[in-house]
């Protein structure tokens, strides 16, 4: 049945695009938790900030200049926000991790309200930069070229991250912190610098993901909660702190959302959390267990 196959190809391709976008969205959260044991519940709000930045700088008729500018500004804003989060959670570093997570939840509420005050409550549409706003013929169907670009970008980001984590001294520090934080401190590395650096990196990733995802998700109140929950699901399925796990889980979720919805349309609403429940029931620490997975 050629029709079914065509749909299948598009669905799988779309799953890949959404999955790679989800990876970019979730990897910052995974990093922060893996290295600091802090669940950064402000992650969704940072994503939304990036999305609103994409709208305010380019909006419906962006140019390449405004698009790249939005990415740069989002990176800066994310970095600043990360620094702020690091400062805010510093005094709580000795207390329970639940409290640090809840503090970030409070920050998320406040940031969402501020965004609503600045940008209003209307949905803001964002379009891809010129050249990427058309369609490409895939197996007889039209497919948006921006999503194909996302596949390339997401794959490049994953590769870059792999190289950095596996091959650079910075990456060695990351792996060491995820494996045994106390040892890293004992080796003389300043914990506060590591903390600040991780928050900055994670927040930058969240904000730039917001810019990249805005042509698909647009910018609206409530998007922060949606993205946070998606990122949480990806990160937990993948195994907290594991970037490889986040990658695998993101691709899995992307496929579930695309092909799953196409095949099992009646159960579509239950797919995401059903998958999460099944994975956690079978592998209670996620798919890729890290050393920290044992610690709760």
């Amino acid at each position: 049945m050629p029709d079914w196959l065509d749909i299948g190809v598009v669905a799988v391709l779309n799953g890949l695009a959404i999955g790679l976008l989800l990876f970019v969205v979730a990897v910052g959260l995974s990093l922060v938790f893996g290295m600091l044991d802090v669940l950064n519940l402000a992650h969704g709000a940072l994503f939304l900030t990036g999305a609103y930045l994409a709208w305010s700088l380019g909006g419906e008729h962006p140019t390449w200049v405004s698009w790249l500018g939005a990415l740069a500004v989002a990176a800066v804003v994310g970095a600043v926000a990360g620094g702020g989060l690091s400062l805010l959670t510093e005094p709580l570093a000795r207390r329970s991790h639940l409290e640090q997570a809840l503090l970030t939840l409070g920050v998320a509420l406040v940031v969402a309200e501020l965004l609503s005050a600045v940008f209003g409550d209307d949905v803001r549409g964002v379009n891809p930069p010129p050249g990427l706003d058309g369609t490409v013929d895939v197996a007889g169907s039209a497919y948006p070229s921006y999503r194909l670009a996302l596949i390339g970008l997401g794959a490049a980001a994953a590769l870059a991250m792999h190289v950095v984590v596996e091959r650079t001294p910075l990456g060695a520090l990351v792996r060491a912190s995820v494996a045994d934080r106390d040892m890293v401190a004992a080796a003389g590395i300043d914990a506060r610098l590591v903390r600040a650096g991780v928050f900055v990196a994670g927040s930058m990733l969240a904000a730039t993901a917001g810019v990249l995802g805005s042509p698909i998700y647009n910018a609206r109140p409530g998007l922060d909660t949606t993205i946070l929950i998606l990122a949480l699901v990806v990160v937990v399925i993948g195994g907290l702190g594991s970037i490889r796990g986040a990658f695998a889980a993101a691709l899995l979720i992307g496929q579930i959302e695309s092909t799953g919805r196409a095949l099992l349309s009646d159960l579509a609403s239950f797919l995401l959390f059903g998958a999460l429940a099944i994975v956690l029931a079978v592998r209670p620490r996620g798919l890729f267990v890290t050393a920290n997975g044992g610690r709760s």
Partner: protein
Amino acid sequence: MSLTTMVYRPTEARLDWPGRLSAAAAVVTLAAAPFFLAPYATTTLTRMLVYALLAASLDLLVGITGLPSLGHAAYFGVGAYMAGWIATNATPAAPLPLLAAAVAGGLAALAAGWVAVRSAGVFFLILTLALAEIIQQLAESWQPVTGGSNGMYGIPATRLGAEPLTHVAYLHWYVLGWFLVGILVVWALSASPFGATLRGIRDNEPRLRALGYQPYRYKLAAFVAAGAVAGLAGGLLATQQRLVTPTDLGFATSALALLAVVIGGTGTIWGPCLGAALVVLVRDSLGPSLGGHGPLVLGLVFIAVVYALPRGVAGVRRPRSRRTATR
């Protein structure tokens, strides 16, 4: 340090004299409230009681057993829907809807907890969230029974004998009575040897296992108990509001309950009740007049509490001059 290391508060299961006096005074004030509060204030107070019971049941899980749940509202909602369904389709005669609600909440918690309690920490947090989202989706999809996304509206008023309870004051006393029953159950569980075992699991599970206990069973029992009390609270919601919607099962309600527990002070039972009162106050009394900025105030209050009150409202120390020997 792990995610669930709460600041441990020494067991004060037995109430000392000041504790007993303030408890009695609180009950008397709550009972007398309709005589000096205007109707809307009484309605808000009744709603506070409902959410306070929810927060107390969550505290049994979070504060006493050390299981942070982000999906506790699911059992609250299951109880609410059950109470509403019984009142609409079987009989609104008190206390049947409420008893059915508690049983339903407990059963749902048994089904979910059987899976959830195997994990711990952040995984438990997310798994409870996932299970709650599934239950909420069920409520939205099962339109013939739950009314779908519009919710279950027009629930008949509870009947005490032949009297329908529509008067604000009578409703308040009815809810207060059952609230006290629920709180007593939670407190009794917490003060019993069962509660001590739960605290042991919270503080040092491997050690308890070494002593021969089976933590899984205790955790599951705590989960079911918390679910049953949450179900009772849900039944009270259906009685008071006569409307149940899928939002009552959702992430926002669970997060609100967790907020209340943290603000009030984990592990103390009465602290979360106060926390719930504060959250409901901000949302319902101040919210409608704040021009839509209720969530902002809540967020700021939350941040302030996490900084200034590390053990929540209940954990605030007595002034130094009266420090006693116990920590």
